[in-house]
């Protein structure tokens, strides 16, 4: 069910402040696309505009087009809630629901949307999702314990399980490993490589090695200057970005000259 995303002339605002300007790119289905760049350049803002999470912030708005398999996400007849069911998201800090057990966290997307399901079907979904997130063997004996009791890496995989349980087409990941230790990071990276068979994945990361390791394409965001909006400087296959980028700024950033 993975889908293709085309972004054209996207401007993103916070109130009157233009945070991101003129983004054009195409994200291929069943691939991992990494977004890199210095802090505050609008990577995360851009990512959040892909499933309309951006407009959750008061005063935030978007101009331009985000098209997924031919449908404009910002069309007047499109409900952001439906968009988010299609395009799931994993956040920087693991955020399992503290009032729910591991089991309930996984089925939260289904339950909160009050879709009626048989217990057996739910059990099956939980197992499938947790296996999909490589967490099943670690938690299968304590599904009724609170999700907040897991370690950071486990919590993050629980959040991934929760996101894939609603079977989205696209999975957005906003620096999913930045709060984790190296071992947990490795587990998540392995998981991403498995998940790209079924989902289109877009990941924002500060870790360039991570981008190089997991992604097929990489986009480099940068600020035109202080107080200026962020722009997509270069979007190319990962190999090309890291070996022979088109732009001087990309090379400077990757070789560690700034950022």
């Amino acid at each position, binding site marked *: 069910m993975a889908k293709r995303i085309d972004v054209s002339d996207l401007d993103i605002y916070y109130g009157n402040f233009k945070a991101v300007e003129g983004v054009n790119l195409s994200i291929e289905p069943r691939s991992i696309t990494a977004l890199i760049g210095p802090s505050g350049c609008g990577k995360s803002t851009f990512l959040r505009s892909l*499933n309309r*999470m951006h407009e*959750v912030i*008061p005063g935030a708005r978007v101009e331009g087009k985000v098209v997924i398999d031919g449908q404009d996400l910002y069309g007047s007849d499109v409900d952001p*809630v*439906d*968009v*988010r*069911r*299609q395009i*799931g*998201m994993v*956040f920087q*800090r693991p*955020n*399992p*629901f*503290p*009032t729910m057990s591991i089991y309930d966290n996984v089925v*939260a*997307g289904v*339950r*909160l*949307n*009050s879709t009626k399901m048989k217990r057996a079907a739910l059990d099956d979904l939980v197992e499938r999702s947790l296996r999909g997130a490589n967490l099943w063997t670690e938690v299968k004996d304590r599904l009724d314990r*609170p999700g907040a009791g897991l370690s950071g890496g486990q919590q993050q995989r629980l*959040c991934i399980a*929760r*996101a894939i349980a*609603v079977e989205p087409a696209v999975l957005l990941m906003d620096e999913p490993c930045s709060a984790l230790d190296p071992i947990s990071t490795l587990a998540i990276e392995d998981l991403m490589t498995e998940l790209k068979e079924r989902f289109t994945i877009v990941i924002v990361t500060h870790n360039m090695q991570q981008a190089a390791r997991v992604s097929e394409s990489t986009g480099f965001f940068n600020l035109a200057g202080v107080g200026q909006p962020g722009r997509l400087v270069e979007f190319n296959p990962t190999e090309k970005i890291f070996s022979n980028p088109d732009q001087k700024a990309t090379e400077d950033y990757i070789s560690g000259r700034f950022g």
Partner: protein
Amino acid sequence: MRTDTQAPAAESPASAGPVRTRRKLPRPAPAALYLLGLLAAAALSALTGFSIALTAIYGVVLGTLAVYVAARLVEGRRKATDRLVTCLVWTAFALAMLPLVSLIYTVLDNGLARLDAEFFNSSMLGVVGEGGGAYHAILGTLVITGLTALISVPIGLLTAIYLVEYGTGRLKKAITFLVDVMTGIPSIVVGLFAFALFALFFGPGIRLGIMGAVALSVLMIPVVVRSAEEVLKLVPNELREASYALGVPKWRTILKVVIPTSIGGLATGTTLAIARVVGETAPLLVTTGFVNGTNLDPFSGRMTTLPVFSFYQLTQPGFPPEFGIERAWSAALVLIVLVMALNVLARLISRFFAPTTSR
């Protein structure tokens, strides 16, 4: 800040390290000196016929003086000032505890006499002099407080949800401001409002239980809004975003994620709000009136609540007065116990729910 010029003189000969050590009062010395002051004060007041009040007054002065002078001599001016303020602050706290202790003692002392079975299971209907009880008043309090909670909790919670989750711009600012203003309206004025509201439709003689509930609601709603607002704000935004990202609509997110996460705090706040209105007397004097028999229907006839009962038993005890006064104190005692119980309950609720609401 002036540096201490006495420092070299106060230097301890025992220290050879790079850090200068100063002469210090031994740890128990200030307390001991203070005690000494108190003893001296007791002796002093005994000269003019012993009195606890005079002992306390002299004691605080002498004790503080003793500590200050000793510190001044041994430790220098700056440290002495510090000790002086410490004495004053402790005294202030003790002074504030005095009314609390005295109040609880007075109420227990006077209220226990009539705290019997009859007090709880009989009304004042046909009672002259001895006997009688607050059965009708206790039930009246329950009915009116329950009705008040029934009106205030939904309105208060919804308003808090509006302010935290939906509110923007001028309307939000106006409501926040007016909730603040509402917390400050004197309760008697609120009573007059409820009276004026009903008098306009039913004439000036009207006294109903529901009028009291309306008045108390005006007092309770802002308390509920304030506490619920604080609690809802504590729910981390990440949880809301996690829910939105699963494609859950906002209203379900609020109902299924935000409220369950903050339920402990909401329950605590509501219980405290109930505790706040259960002892209100003034608005009920002008709205529910006073009656000797039991009336459980808030929509017809006068009703008595515990605080109003207590007030009238004290101010109009009948003849002979001692029985009414005894009943008044017992009612006051029951009222305090009720309010304290609600406060303890609120604490328990917040403790019980604490693990799930903590981040």
